[in-house]
Structure formats: structure tokens, C-alpha cells
């Protein structure tokens, strides 16, 4: 909402191979006409700007609205109280995910022991039926984490505007869609008007050159990016992830990257369309086919930033030099390479960051100077909208195969991102690999990423987690979260402590 387009100096925190450029001038190669080209964000924004309201807010037309049980009930209630109807039913797609239990799915709603959670799931069912909104209900094999389901179904398409009452909606930006998390009032606003009233954000480009090494994933890349630009590094901006390292990523890996844009402060993150994008979409249920696919593809190919586009902020890194990353603190910017040690507060220049470090050390019960490899774990969680797709499960299974979860680990969970991911993994025998190693194999949902269901840490427990937030209490009251990639979580499970996954491949 603070997103005027103006050049703004970045926080000058130079480290490793990072280069944060402070001025717009160094970034812009103006065309002969003197008018700069458009960014990908500019293009999608312009194609959806309906009108400017007389209060200066732009009405942005929304192509796809995803709903789940936690942030929608008050919006439906608001519609009802005002006697309003949804503007366009076919734009909406709902599925419960946040507080579903990950066991005993076949029992349906009756299997939800938590009465209050059950009420929310029933409310979503009722609201969808009453208003005529398409839902994948909890026992539908297509149910799953809403940000896994959208792309899997082809309900997420390039150039779309997508919203959902969940901050990790940024995930869908991997498809060159403008995808943003919204609050419940905006859920109601989109239901009623098919528009979001918004000010345009700034443009930020994050370029990853080179290529990620074997065993280093897009999760490591995004953790490294947040470490260096900070959790407010992209506030007020839409990020475009660019560069050879990003182009080499699969769609699922790009989703992981865009998913955590919000942890860098960016409400949306995007990746330009290329062959990888278009190949992924072929044959998906909601995606166009036949003649319309040809028409759509021609349009989608244009969803790239012009060579002379202007960015208000930029950051660049050499991805080749990255090692697997592990978060050590209670903010996603407190991250280490696997060969590094827990820092001391003196390592930070600004008083606010020193204080953050002190609080994090105390909460995480860590001593400065401890190599992160020496940190022992109680639990391992492989799941969430960040890392619960089939490629994530394959990467973890590759490490786990033929090994056992360390006896010191109390519980190791694998929670697939959707019923269809689960089915695919079972067809490939991955469930057997995990089970034989001592992992639990669960049903789809958000699970221990935010611990609204029964999957949670007990006070003081330490978890290697493939999720996205390591905030205090996020995975359970007084629980301690370390964010890692699926392969790193698998290596930690078999080792009992953090390990360099490259030694397990």
C-alpha cells in the first residue's frame, strides 16, 4: 500500500556474492524512444486495471479466487448480512486445508475431533453449497493445500490475477501470474465485486546468475535471498525472480521460490513465462486445450519483462556459490549455510538486528559459535505449500532410501500437499521408502507448518521443517523451527542433527 513507483535506496548490506544496486539509473537501459519498457508485473497489472476510483485506488480485476476454511467464514457472513451475491462464481475454487487432521481422512468431517475446527470445515461446506462455489471437499482426492491444488489443476494460469486469504498466495507467481495474499475484508470484496482495490506496488528484480549446485535447491536460494535482503527487503514491491539459475528451475521449484516472496516482505513474486511454464500446463483439467491453448500460448509468451524495463530496486547473486541453507533464528532472515556457525549479536551492525539476534538466541536456546551441524533435532516435518509437491517428496525419498530415521528423532512426518500428490507418490513407491525408514505417511493439509491441527511441536522441541516461517510458536507453543529444503530435512532425520545433504547423494 506504500508502493509509489519511485527509486528508493536499498538497505546497503553487502555480503558474499551479493550486490544490491541502489539506484534506478544503473539498471535502466532506455530505448531509443526514451520511454522505458514494461516489467512483467506492469503488464499483468495493466491488463487487469478496470478503473481508478475517485479515492485514487485502482480496481484490479481478479481472474481466480481461491478459498479455504479459516479466512472465509467472516467474508461469507458479511455478504449475507449485506444481501450481496458473488460476482462471478466460476472464478472461485475452494478446498479446506489449514486445520484438517492428517490422519483418518476417510472418516470425513466426523473424523475431526477438534470441535471448533470441525465447525469451520462445516461452515466452508455450507457456504460453498449455498452460494454455488466449487469446492474440493475434505474427502475428495483433489483436496489439498490450496497453493498446491491451484497449479496442479491448471486453475493457476499465466497472466492471471489470483488472490486468496492466505499470504502464501505468492506461490502462484511462478506462472507469471500476479498472485497476492489478502485479508478477510478483501475476500468479501473480491467475492462481491470481482475486484481488489489497490495501489500499485514498486518493481523489484532479484537475479540469480549461474546455476545451483547438486543438492542445492530453490528453497536454499530463497532462504539465501531473504537472509541478504531481509524480511522487509521487498516491502511495497512485487518481486520478479530472474537469471539463469531461475530459468533452470522446474515449475515446482519456482513455486517454492515465489512462495516465500512474502517472507522477504513482497506481497507477490513472479517468474516470466518460458517453455517450462507452458509444458507444465499441458493436459491439466482447468487449463485450455486444443485451439484455445494455441491462442493462450501466444498470449502467454509475451509475459516477460521488456529488455528496457525499469526496476525500482534490484538485487543479484551468484547461485553457483550457494550451499544448503538452514535457518537458525525466529525470523526467516536468520539463516546460515550448512558450514556456518550460529552468530553472536555483535555480528550485526544495527541495534534492532542485534536485539532480534539476542531474542532469537534465547528463544531457540542456541549458543553463539555453535556450528549448525552440531544442532540436534527432536522432530522432522516434510510438508507445507512451500515444499510438499511430488518433486519435493522425491528429493527427500532419494536421501532416505535404504536409511533409517535416527533413534533420537521423536517423530518424522511426511504430509503430501494434496490427495493427488499422495496418490502419485504411492504409485512411485515413495510412501514405502518413507515408512520403512520410520517416517509417518499422512493425508494432505497444512499440518505442522502452522499447527492448527494436532500436528505440532511440544514446548522446547526442535524441528527441521520444510515450511516457510520460523516465528516464535509457529509450529506449537514454545516450539523451535529450523527451515530447510526437503532433502536437508531428510538428511537431518537420518543423522539426528543437521547434515550437508551433498554427502548423502
Amino acid at each position, binding site marked *: 500500500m506504500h508502493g509509489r513507483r519511485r527509486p528508493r535506496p536499498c538497505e546497503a548490506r553487502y555480503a558474499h556474492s551479493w550486490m544490491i544496486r541502489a539506484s534506478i539509473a544503473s539498471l535502466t537501459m532506455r530505448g531509443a524512444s526514451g520511454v522505458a519498457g514494461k516489467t512483467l508485473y506492469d503488464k499483468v497489472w495493466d491488463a487487469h486495471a478496470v478503473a481508478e476510483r475517485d479515492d485514487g485506488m485502482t480496481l484490479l480485476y481478479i481472474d481466480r479466487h481461491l478459498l479455504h476454511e479459516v479466512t472465509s467464514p467472516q467474508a461469507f*457472513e458479511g455478504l449475507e448480512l449485506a444481501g450481496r451475491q458473488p460476482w462471478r462464481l466460476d472464478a472461485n475454487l475452494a478446498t479446506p486445508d489449514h486445520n484438517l487432521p492428517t490422519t483418518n481422512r476417510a472418516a470425513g468431517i466426523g473424523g475431526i475431533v477438534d470441535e471448533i475446527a470441525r465447525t469451520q470445515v462445516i461452515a466452508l461446506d455450507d457456504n460453498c453449497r449455498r452460494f454455488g462455489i466449487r469446492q474440493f471437499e475434505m474427502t475428495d482426492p483433489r483436496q489439498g493445500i490450496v497453493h498446491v491444488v491451484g497449479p496442479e489443476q491448471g486453475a493457476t494460469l499465466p497472466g492471471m490475477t489470483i488472490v486468496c486469504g492466505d499470504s502464501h498466495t505468492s506461490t502462484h507467481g511462478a506462472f507469471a501470474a500476479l498472485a497476492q495474499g489478502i485479508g478477510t475484508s478483501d475476500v468479501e470484496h473480491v467475492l462481491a465485486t470481482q475486484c481488489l482495490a489497490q495501489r500499485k506496488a514498486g518493481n523489484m528484480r532479484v537475479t540469480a546468475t549461474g546455476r545451483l549446485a547438486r543438492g542445492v535447491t530453490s528453497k536454499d536460494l530463497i532462504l539465501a535471498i531473504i537472509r541478504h535482503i531481509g524480511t522487509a527487503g521487498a516491502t511495497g514491491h512485487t518481486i520478479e525472480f530472474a537469471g539463469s539459475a531461475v530459468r533452470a528451475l522446474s515449475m515446482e521449484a519456482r513455486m517454492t521460490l515465489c512462495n516465500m516472496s512474502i517472507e522477504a516482505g513482497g506481497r507477490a513474486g513472479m517468474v516470466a513465462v518460458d517453455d517450462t511454464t507452458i509444458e507444465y500446463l499441458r493436459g491439466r483439467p482447468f487449463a485450455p486445450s486444443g485451439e484455445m491453448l494455441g491462442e493462450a500460448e501466444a498470449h502467454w509468451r509475451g509475459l516477460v519483462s521488456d529488455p528496457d524495463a525499469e526496476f525500482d530496486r534490484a538485487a543479484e547473486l551468484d547461485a553457483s556459490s550457494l550451499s544448503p541453507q538452514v535457518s537458525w533464528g525466529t525470523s526467516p532472515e536468520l539463516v546460515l549455510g550448512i558450514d556456518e556457525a550460529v552468530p553472536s549479536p555483535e555480528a550485526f551492525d544495527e541495534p534492532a538486528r542485534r536485539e532480534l539476534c539476542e531474542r532469537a538466541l534465547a528463544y531457540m536456546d542456541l549458543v553463539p559459535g555453535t556450528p549448525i551441524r552440531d544442532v540436534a533435532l527432536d522432530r522432522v516435518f516434510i510438508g507445507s505449500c512451500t515444499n510438499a509437491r511430488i518433486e519435493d517428496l522425491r528429493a527427500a525419498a532419494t536421501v532416505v532410501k535404504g536409511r533409517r530415521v535416527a533413534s533420537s528423532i521423536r517423530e518424522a512426518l511426511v504430509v503430501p500437499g494434496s490427495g493427488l500428490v499422495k496418490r502419485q507418490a504411492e504409485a512411485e513407491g515413495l510412501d514405502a521408502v518413507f515408512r520403512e525408514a520410520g517416517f509417518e505417511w499422512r493425508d494432505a493439509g497444512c499440518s505442522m507448518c502452522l499447527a492448527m491441527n494436532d500436528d505440532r511441536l511440544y514446548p522446547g522441541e526442535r524441528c527441521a521443517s520444510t515450511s516457510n516461517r520460523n516465528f516464535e510458536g509457529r509450529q506449537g507453543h514454545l516450539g523451535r523451527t529450523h527451515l530447510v529444503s526437503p532433502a536437508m530435512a531428510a538428511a537431518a532425520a537420518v543423522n539426528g542433527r543437521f547434515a550437508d545433504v551433498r554427502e548423502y547423494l
Partner: protein
Amino acid sequence: MQAFDTHTGLVVPLDRANVDTDQIIPKQFLKSIRRTGFGDNLFDAWRFRDEGDMTKTANEREINRDFVLNEPRYQGASVLVTRTNFGCGSSREHAVWALLEYGFRCIIAPSFADIFSGNSLQNGLLLVTLPDEVVGQLIERAQTVPEFSLTVDLPKQTIAGDGFAASFDIEPERKRLLAEGLDEIAQTLRYADAIRAFEEAHRHRMPWVFDET
């Protein structure tokens, strides 16, 4: 939504950066299907020593006397002064509902997260952005001056109290929405014809985003 004009209230300092929405209202309280009932659980993990859930009432809880909001001198505070990037993390609007229900009308910080900022606007919670050093002075005063109160004047864009005075910037459209307490949906529906016309053209440009079945 409650319109905002001027407000005078006791100031409480929360001297922390990056306060995320998981701290403002922890996830176990998001299971409600209503907009009310969140105030008792604002900053739950900091205000109480035991783990709360939706069935426990405030008088069954173990209060953390060390947390600033629990100090007797800050009871009844309605202005929160805090550090940078307040409201980061989850998009849960419950965070704003909890702050309002607890009694806050205005939050002052060097910066706010984007989604939180939008949610605040929708609910009449005024966010005042001031430079780091000014916020530092306010935090110090709130810590040292007994009963330190501020008058927040939205029309004049000023805050003042106990010899302290500052002015703040706010985008005109945000100011107007807050000052008039407008229903955003009603505002947008005034453009219903424009939305319909756009939609028709959009259907021709990008027919694949519409499900015609």
C-alpha cells in the same frame, strides 16, 4: 467501520522489531467463524505463560507480569508504539480485529507489512509511520513519563502530548477512507458498470480464464 477523527489515549511501548501476525494472534484462535472474540488473546504467547486455547477464559490463565501490556501503568492503553516491519507474516485479518478489540485505535511504527496495512485500513485502525529516531523518542517517553498520552489528529496529520509534537504523512485516499469510515464494497460497486464492461472485453482477450461450462 468506525470513522477516525481525533483520538487521545495512553501510549504503550512494544520495543520489538518484526512483530509478526503469529505473535499478534496465534493460530489456535483463528478457528472462530466470527469477527469478534479475539481481544483476550492478543499477543497471547507473550501475555500469558501457559498455552491458551479457545476454551480457556482470561481468568483461568497464568499472566506474564513481565510483558509490557500487563504492567498496571499501561492498562487501558489505546496507542501502541513499536518498531519496524510490524504485522509481517500471515495475512490473517484476525490480527487487526484482535488489536481493535483489545482497545487499540492507533499504531505508530517506522514501517508496517503490506497486507497488514491493507487489513488495518479496512477496519479503521490508524497506522502512523514515523522515522526510526522519532519512534525511538516516543518509546523512551512511554517508558519513562508516567501516564504518557498522545492525541492523534488525523485531519491535521499530527500527534502531540506532554511537550512532544510530530506530523505524519498519509496517502490521501487512506486518510479519506479512515476519516469517513466508508464501506469499501459499496464504494467499488459504484463502478459496477465499468467492471461489467471490463469483464466483457477481458472475456474476449483472455477467454481461457473463464469457465464457460
